[in-house]
């Protein structure tokens, strides 16, 4: 007989939040939809519930009940990460695990567990223990039908007094009839119906799954929509002993597309390493093609025989499956990599992107355009000198000279917009003007201090213009400077400043 388990990690977002902030556990705490007073409270811990805070309230309303209420958001990616961790953990308890669309809920095949464990109760305990190591609390129901064990798990989650309580954390049904009785008597809240629908059914006096099942299916659809009807049918399955339910659709652990070649004799010769990498690349490209995807980035790992592995990211100019091009980039990178010892193994894995028609066309018809060549050269530069080899200055919205720009890595060649640096387009037929300011200020990488001597004598200044004052940033550390332009005897224009706090002089740059 098919045995099925439903594992529910209730209030997953709250559990993740309290794992992130364990110091919040004794205090009223809540997950909110956004970090603002208007954010909706999504879930609360028992302390908050004691203070009268409940999901659906605005954070501001919760605060009015207890000024101690701690709250934060839990981003979707954090929840997804939590789901993946739980999934991996459950896959150690059963090879067949199906995550539900409801985050924190899983179907687990328990059919083969009977001969492996003295009892299913002990198997459930193992699941609890495993999830406990992840810092998670769950309820588990083992039954015969999807809805039966779902309803039982949800009922336990609804009635569980507090996270951490050991009672009512697991239930194993011995007969389908026992499961059916439990499911029919379960509160309607176990169904993932929209709160507004639950409210309307509550008004009609429909409070249990059994009462819900007494409503005509067509009437449910007409009044509450297709999703409610789907749940109605889903719940009806328990009456049929689960016969009409979908079989389990387990998720298999993702196989990482990583290919490794062990070198027969550890070596640091580029040629040998390239050869090994080429073998990995062939396999990788094969797998890539099978996925109908393109390689966006490669990770090359060189396992040094007696040392730490060297890991390198290589980025082609555009997503590609071009073996020759990729191999050339690998060769360039290997040429420039300094190894601390002979390499015992070479691994290659990739990051993918979905193949588009345009990309396929690019792949088939190699463009000879200058832009593609430039991109290729750019990629080669980065392959040879590293990914931070090419940088550009970006203007920042700041008054302080040293904060008014920053360097950033250039990862792609910028698009040629055909515009001049000031954003305008050149006149038709006109040659591109080179608008150079009459004077260029060369800013030193860091200002140079001047000795505390009379300035004019130290620098031999003939004239000094200023001061131009710059002050502010008082909320962190206050800056107050007097800037001057000074001309020395040789006619060189210096850009100087005096720090008003330290009373010291600095040369910030030169005017050419």
């Amino acid at each position, binding site marked *: 007989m098919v045995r099925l388990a439903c594992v529910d990690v209730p209030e997953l977002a709250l559990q993740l939040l309290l794992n992130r902030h364990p110091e919040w556990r004794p205090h009223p705490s809540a997950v*909110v939809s956004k*970090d*603002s*007073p208007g*954010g909706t409270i999504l879930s609360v811990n028992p302390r908050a519930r004691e*203070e*009268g805070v409940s999901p659906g309230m605005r*954070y*501001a309303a919760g*605060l*009015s*009940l*207890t*000024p101690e*209420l701690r*709250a934060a958001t839990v981003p979707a990616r954090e929840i997804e990460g939590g789901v993946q961790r739980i999934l991996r953990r459950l896959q150690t308890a059963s090879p067949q695990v199906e995550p539900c669309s409801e985050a924190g809920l899983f179907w687990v095949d328990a059919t083969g567990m009977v001969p492996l464990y003295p009892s299913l109760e002990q198997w459930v305990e193992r699941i609890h223990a495993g999830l406990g190591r992840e810092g998670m609390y769950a309820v588990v129901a083992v039954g015969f039908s999807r809805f039966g064990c779902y309803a039982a798990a949800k009922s336990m989650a609804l009635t569980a007094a507090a996270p951490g309580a050991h009672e009512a954390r697991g239930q194993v049904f011995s007969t389908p009839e026992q499961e059916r009785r439990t499911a029919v008597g379960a509160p309607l809240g176990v169904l993932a119906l929209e709160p507004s629908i639950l409210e*309307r059914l509550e*008004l*009609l*006096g429909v409070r249990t799954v059994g009462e819900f099942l*007494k*409503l*005509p299916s067509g*009437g449910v659809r*007409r*009044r*509450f929509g297709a999703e409610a009807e789907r749940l109605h049918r889903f719940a009806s399955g328990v009456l049929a002993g689960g016969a009409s339910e979908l079989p389990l659709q387990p998720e298999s652990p993702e196989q990482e597309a990583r290919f490794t070649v062990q070198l027969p004799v550890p070596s640091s010769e580029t040629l040998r390493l390239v050869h090994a990498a080429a073998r990995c690349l062939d396999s990788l490209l094969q797998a890539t093609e099978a996925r109908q995807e393109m390689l966006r980035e490669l990770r090359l790992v060189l396992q040094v025989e007696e040392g730490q592995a060297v890991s390198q990211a290589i980025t082609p100019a555009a997503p590609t499956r071009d073996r020759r091009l990729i191999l050339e980039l690998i060769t360039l990178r290997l040429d420039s990599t300094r190894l601390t010892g002979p390499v015992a193994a070479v691994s290659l894995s990739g990051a993918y992107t979905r193949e588009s028609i345009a990309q396929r066309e690019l792949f088939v018809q190699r463009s000879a355009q200058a832009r593609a060549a430039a991109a290729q050269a750019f990629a080669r530069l980065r392959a040879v000198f590293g990914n931070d080899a090419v940088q550009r200055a970006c203007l*920042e*919205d*700041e*008054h302080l000279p040293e904060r008014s720009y920053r360097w950033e890595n250039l990862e792609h060649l910028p698009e040629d917009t055909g515009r001049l640096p000031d954003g305008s387009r050149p006149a038709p037929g006109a040659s591109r003007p080179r608008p150079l300011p009459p004077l260029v200020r060369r800013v030193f990488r860091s200002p140079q201090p001047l000795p505390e001597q009379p*300035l*004019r004598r130290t620098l031999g*200044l003939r*004239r*000094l*213009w*200023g*001061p*131009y*004052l*710059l*002050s*502010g940033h*008082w*909320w*962190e550390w206050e800056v107050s400077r007097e*800037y*001057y*332009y000074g001309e020395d005897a040789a006619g060189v224009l210096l850009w100087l400043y005096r720090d008003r706090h330290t009373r010291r002089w600095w040369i910030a740059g030169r005017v050419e």
Partner: protein
Amino acid sequence: MAAGAGPTGGTGAVPAYVPLWCKSNYSFLEGASHPEELVRQAHGLGLPALALTDRDGLYGIVRAHVEARKLGVKLLVGVQLSLEDGGRVILLAQDREGYANLCGLVSAGRLRSPKGACRVRPEEVLARAAGLIALGLPDSLDTLAALREAFGDRLYALAARHRQADEPAREALLRSRAAALGVPLVAGTEVLYHDSGRRRLQDVLTCIGGNCTLDRAGTRLRPNDQHELKSPPEMLSLYRESLPRDLLLEDPGVIERTVEIAQRCSFGLEEIRYRYPSEELPDGLSSAQWLRRLALEGAERRYGREIPPGVRRQLDKELELIEELDYCGYFLTMREIVEFCQRRGILCQGRGSAANSVVCYCLEITAVDPVRMQLLFERFISRERDEPPDIDLDIEHRRREEVIQYVYERYGRDRAAMVANMVRYRLRSAVRDVGKVLGLPVTTLNRLARLLPAFGGELESSLRQAGLDLESPRHKMLAEFGEQILEFPRHLSIHPGGFLLGAEAVSRFVPVENATMPGRTVIQWDKYDVEDMHLFKVDLLGLGALTHLDYAFRLLREHRALSMDMASVPQGDPAVYDLACRADTVGVFQIESRAQMAMLPRLKPRCFYDLVIEISIVRPGPIVGGMVHPYLRRRSGAEPVEYPHPSLRPVLEKTLGVPIFQEQVMRLAMVAADYTPGEADQLRRDMAAWRSAGRIERHRDKLVSRMTAKGIVPEFAEKVYQQILGFGEYGFPESHAASFALIAYSTAWLKCHYPAEFTCALLNAWPMGFYTPSSIVEDARRRGVEVRPVDVLESAWECTLQPAGPAVLASAKRGVFAIRMGLRFVKSLERKDWEAIRAARESIRMRPAGPNGSPSLQEFVRLTRIDEGSLAALAEAGALRGFGEERREALWRVSGAARWKGGGRAGTPPVQPELPVGDDELLPEFAALSAFESIGWDYLSTGHSVRGHPLEPFREELARQGLPDAGALNAGEDGARVSYAGLVICRQRPGTAGGVVFMTLEDESGFVNCVVWARVFERYRTVILSNTVLGVSGALQSQDGVVHVVVESCWKPRLSRPPANKESRDFH
């Protein structure tokens, strides 16, 4: 300071200098000083004059004008005007015409722009250049030539310097352009604060305006702190030393020219001569003659053909003064508005100090006879004060808009505009805005803001009490800047009903802009500015109680053929005073609050004047001033009535020797301390300006020494001063209280004699007053009035009266009526739904009934075509019971029935329902609603229940726990230990009560008042705030019929089910 820039421009005398580009904090979120601070600083620096040139407005000019007049500083009136092309120009008014042009330009720019913005077209500036001096800025170079054309020699190029590195280049360009056009240069800095210590606050304001944090503000902040008001030597240093001479030519006159400009501007705000609109008058009469005629005619109506000599004398005195001060037009306008209301049947009544005037009484602007009540006319108008009177007119709130639109229509859009209300920073808004700028988490700020008092209080200690660590640098900054920003103007809103009316366009003497409400325009000055400028203001205020009265009188006319108004309500009815003494005053104007109800059985009002006192005594002024208990003791005979000096007897006699009204405080000052009427009025104004420290204190020595000199014992003199101090603006003038007492008496009379009409009208006038509809309905039911539930086949939109009892005709004859609740109380139902229901109802009545004899619900749904939500609300409210189905069945039937393609409504071509509901659809079985559930559904869908109180189904359960109902509890003995559970209908923490919370709990038998001391509240805060049904234990305090539970502990009652939710009304 400048290193080696060459000679400093000589060592001669420092030239005089006038700052021409100053922005105060009325350049919202840009300037960081109050206008007064700028003027005081200018005075301190020895500057002869100062120009206030706020951005696109004259919001702060009156504040500056008042201060400048006091200190003898010349104030130039100007504006920094934003142009549509992105440029800016500074304009200064030379003369009255220039000022009118300035106001006109700002108005034009504001009226065409969305709220908060102002964009003036350059051609408008050129067209209205007369009487104005223009200062061109570097960023408006393109328009310099055009400005030159229009302004001629009244144009200057402003070479602004702030020691910024990019200024020399810009100035060089400006100089070359100016030289080419022959425009002289003038020196100036953009002044944003009076002292450089405010620079940080200016940064904070910039961030608030830019909605960013300091960390992300970047170049939105000014690069340095050179925007303070500079002294002449500092200006000399700035203009003679700092710039490279090979780039800029010396211009020795550049500073002196500021003085030349100041001399060319002769305009001052005192030149604004305001003429009140005087329309065409009959028989070629002057406005004074016409006013006299109307007043005398009115006096005959009020007093009969033989006008009493005292009244005649007072009339003559008032009319003479009104004519002398040229206020006749103002009174005629008020009379016109009142006449309009009378023509339209809109109830209105003057309130406030206008009730001190017999002219107002005769013109029917007010309803209180000031001669009979011996009210002080000087409180209204005083020759010494030379200040326009202020008449506030209460209008029934549902019809106020009609009167406002009349005023617009009568005087024209350009001659009428509403007075502004300046929204200023208070503790909470300051913490929220400054905290955001400092990058503190919004959730934290919200928590802090909630813990701060709504008004008053000292920020730093409040933040400390809220648990903020003030050792943290950012928290320190929050306290520092939060404190500094308090009282800064934040933005403009609209005064509730203040109008400015003019004989000429209002925009000639103050800029006008759009209000948020469509169709409304607002001037840039608030009521204090209007008062300081001696302008006339008409206040048209909405009052729910007048609507209530109007509705009740209409019901009496309709159902009993009784034609009544306020004037015909029988006076001196003992039953009305009995009702008041019992504090049976739910819904009675002014004396219905918890505090008033607690006072009524002690004060025991037996005449109209007692009501006047009752209304006035439950006010923060008398409470804080310690007048309440002495008055009550003297009234009950427990304490002898004594006067500190025989001369004070006439002043205090009416109130048993205890000052209760504002007028008494003024008279006290006049009689005991020989204040002139003008001085007494100044005292009143200083009492009102309680936020401005020091204004009231300056009266202390004068009052005490003069009273002592008259033989009044120093202790009493000091006591009087302390009472004045406590009075603040929280005391009522006697005339105002008397006006309100008239309305209070009328509503109480209706409640006493026509409770059904009273309740029906009150429900229809709601929202108003102190109580929710559920409490109003409960109160009516306790009084034996039958209240019937909403029913789509019976109810109208509003509540209506129906003959009561089973013997309908007989009861109608007897004049007993029941109230049928109106559909307006069904939540989510809209008025257009009612129109559809009414049409459908007519159709149903015209057709044969359904199969079981009742009209068919399906037919109703088809005919009304109202949406599913509204139908469900009707089903939940039980309003569909006329179709023969219980609420759950009706709810199931209508759910999904009204999903119409295209959402057709009555009057549009019929369409088929997407999912038609057939009569033959199988109806599931639903459990019948229990009594408890029925009441719950009522509250859920209509906010009240006529079937019972939410606690009624729990009475047995509560009795088993030994908990009495309100009736039994209120009959308990003083000092008894009691426990009680009731529904919280009000939580109140008045600012005058030192943290004490007053709660009113309710059950089916009545109210229970609770007093929760601050420490008890803090301990049970969560329980009190989070439970709608609350249990309290404590000591019963029962004195003079006033019963309170002094709460010692609070708890959540043990109930088998949660009761229906009823919202409480909380006040802070």
